[in-house]
């Protein structure tokens, strides 16, 4: 086999891994993107909610084995999906008592100031969740193993009988579930009555109030949905990746990079942004040592905010 053939094989392998991981990243970015788009809130703690989604799935499926009746394959994925409603409830309450104090109509006039306060408040929430997680869950890395984690589909490459691609089944299923959940959410936002309410509140909060929409409630629901979606993504990551309470930090940058890249307010944009980051991460392994994979993401993130910061809030120049 030629070295070029080997390169193609490695490249395609990285490409497939990138698409699958990218789909999961896309889903978590969609969660952050909804919070961003509807509430214009910078949530620094999004990565920690992803971590909570992982531990929720872990305790439900492995710790207490409450989904034994679903079997070893369906159980973990059901657990991941259940993390959505569970974390929705947590986020709903958190918004009611904490986040709503620094967001919403009350800070609408103080654009810049409001963001700082939100960023710093959610940093506090992140620290509490991260270290509270360490207290509750311990620092030992955990994982939600399924029989699929160690299995792969082998896809033969037609041009060479000796070459084939391996598709990890756990990642493949997680990727497909991510796409389905993201599509369902897309339908919810664009077609349902609730979605219309959320979009109205996002577009013009004061006008929405005059139309009889409870904007504070809309914000709370958006916050809950955003967190819930990211938690589902966390549960899916848990099926193929070991985790500990500090894992959120690695993902928060990925999420922001994806959302900034996709342009805010667009669910599809956030998904494709996440997908791009997944591809960049996996393809970077072709040229960089694995330890620098995460460093590469941070560099890409920096490049994205430098080159296209208006992706986030749309307005490039300030009127003077």
């Amino acid at each position, binding site marked *: 086999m030629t070295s070029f053939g080997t390169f193609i094989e490695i490249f395609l392998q990285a490409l497939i891994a990138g698409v699958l991981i990218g789909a999961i990243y896309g889903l978590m970015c969609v969660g952050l993107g909804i919070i961003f788009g509807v509430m214009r809130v910078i949530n620094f703690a999004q990565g920690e909610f992803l971590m909570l989604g992982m531990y929720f799935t872990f305790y439900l499926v492995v710790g207490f084995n409450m989904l034994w009746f679903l079997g070893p394959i369906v159980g973990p994925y059901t657990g991941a999906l259940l993390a959505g409603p569970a974390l929705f409830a947590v986020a709903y309450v958190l918004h009611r008592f904490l986040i709503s104090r620094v967001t919403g109509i009350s800070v609408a006039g103080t654009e810049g100031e409001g963001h700082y*306060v939100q960023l*710093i408040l959610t940093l506090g929430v992140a*620290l509490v969740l991260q*270290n509270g997680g360490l207290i509750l869950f311990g620092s030992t890395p955990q994982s939600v193993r399924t029989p699929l984690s160690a299995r792969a589909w082998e896809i033969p490459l037609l041009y060479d009988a000796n070459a084939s691609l391996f598709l990890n089944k756990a990642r493949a299923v997680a990727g497909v579930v991510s796409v389905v959940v993201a599509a369902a959410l897309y339908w919810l936002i664009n077609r349902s009555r609730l979605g219309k309410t959320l979009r109205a509140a996002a577009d013009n909060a004061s006008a929405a109030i005059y139309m009889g929409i409870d904007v504070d409630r809309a914000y709370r629901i958006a916050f809950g949905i955003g967190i819930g979606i990211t938690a589902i993504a966390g549960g899916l990551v848990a099926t193929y990746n070991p985790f500990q309470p500090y894992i959120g930090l690695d993902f928060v940058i990925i999420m922001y990079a994806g959302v900034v890249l996709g342009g805010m307010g667009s669910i599809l944009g956030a998904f494709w942004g996440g997908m791009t980051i997944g591809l960049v991460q996996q393809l970077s392994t072709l040229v960089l040592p694995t330890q620098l994979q995460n460093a590469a993401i*941070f560099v890409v993130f*920096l490049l994205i*905010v430098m080159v296209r910061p208006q992706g*986030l809030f749309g307005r490039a120049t300030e009127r003077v």
Partner: protein
Amino acid sequence: MQVRRKLIAPLLVIAIVAIAWISLGMVVTNSYYQLMLTLVPIWAVMGLSWNLLSGYTGLISFGHAAFFGLGAYTVTIALVKFDITPWLGIPLGMIVGAVAGIVIGYPTFRLRGVYFALAMLAYPMALLYVFVWLGYQEVPLPMKREEPALYMQFSDYRVYIALAVGLLVVSLLISLAVERSRFGMSLTAIKQNEPAAEAAGIDTLAWKMRAIMLSGAVAAAAGGLYAVVLLVVTPDSVFGVLTSAQALTIALFGGIGILWGPLIGAAILIPLSETLQAHLGDVIPGIQGVVYGIAIILVVLLAPEGVFWRVRDQFQRRWATRAVQATPLAPHIVTAAPAPATPRKPILAVSGISKSFGGLRAVTNVSFEIGDGEIVGIIGPNGAGKTTLFNLLNGFLQADSGKVVFAGHELIGLKPNRICRLGVGRTFQVARAFPRLSVLNNVVVGAYATTTNDADAFAAASAALAQVGLFGRADAIAGQLTNKELRLMELARALAGRPRLLLMDEPLAGLASQEIEDMLAVIRSLAARGMTIVIIEHTMRAMVRLSERFVVLDHGAILAVGQPSEVINNGGVIEAYLGKKWAAIRARS
């Protein structure tokens, strides 16, 4: 003189804190409390470093661990690999920190607000992985038994306490020097209104770069000493998010934008979290982070600017009830001289400038000249491109094509602060004040453009305030002014830079009729002293009385130029303002 007297109190406080701390260190014998007495000053220094950048400029940094970690690793690697003593390693680390400030600051200062904060987070995270990759997972500092003092290794722990306090004193003095000079004032102006600072002649990028270099050097010094004290460095402990969060929390908790803030924050939070860590750390491993998290949440909800300001506001409120409101002095009246009739030589020549935003052509091929000492009105319906034209002239926007020559200098391509320094002053449609500074300090910021020492700047600012009749309100806080006072203050800020050409964007907007008369009197008095003034204004009646010439813009292009009486009878102008029907009626009568 006055400035010097104001410095005595803070210097005294710094001396007392240092002496008290060292005395405490002499008495305490428990090695654990000795470590705490060393860590509090080190983290206070880290908080001061954060405050130097983020507290004064308002650009929140989530990545100060980058500087701290680089300082710590510079000292460690210098000692381990090259046998360089920390006495030299720490200064070396400070240089590395300052250079990192340049490398990080230059690209990142293009970002604002949230983007800046998030981008700053990425630097230490990337560095963390790079240092792990380089194989520096856990680097112990080697013991030097022969000449310990030469390698900053002491058996008597009190020396470390003294070193930490020494570093703290230096950092406090640096902060004090920044706070009480045009450095700090410029940073504060940037924090409160960056475009206004730039238009008032402050080179905002240069000041921010100086701030991040200084901040990086101070943080690196803290990191270097931290490595020396703890004798082991890991990427997580120095580049980790908790390090950045700790710097931010300490400053934010104690009070931002003031040198006492980080001191208060460190003195309360470090003993609290370290004690909890020591007593409960084995049982509850993450307790330190939880404490910081809760501290941040409580501060944001209860005292968003920190403990220092909260307490000070409490005291001031008690004071204010007793204090008597100062009565404003009578405005300084200047009578206008009649305008000279001789032809003027041009001071500003605009030729063929254009600007479009995407498909929208905001300004199209505009050319005109302004004579020295002239008052020219730029009029035109809403959306005609008047403010865009001003933004092109003072450098907020870059023209797509065309030339602007002011007193022999080409202005296109220059930054607003350079254009201001060349002698082009500007006021804004919506007055842009530095709301939390006093009226005098607002104007002083404008005076920095043309003065080199602070006394001159204050004198120029006072003169400018007198010129607009606002001297009696010099000590008021800008946020409390009326609309008219705000506009006069903004005018004074522009005047303090001694401009030859003044661009005024709707100076009469929102003023009552008597206030308009006052404002017109001030503008005429400026013209009488030979200043060239270009005004955008809608109030046609006032403009006809004030201007010698009109430039009429419509849809971004020049519609007419000429004497006010000619222009207001020009059919095209009437049509642009009132529509075709009115133009036809005027033509018939």
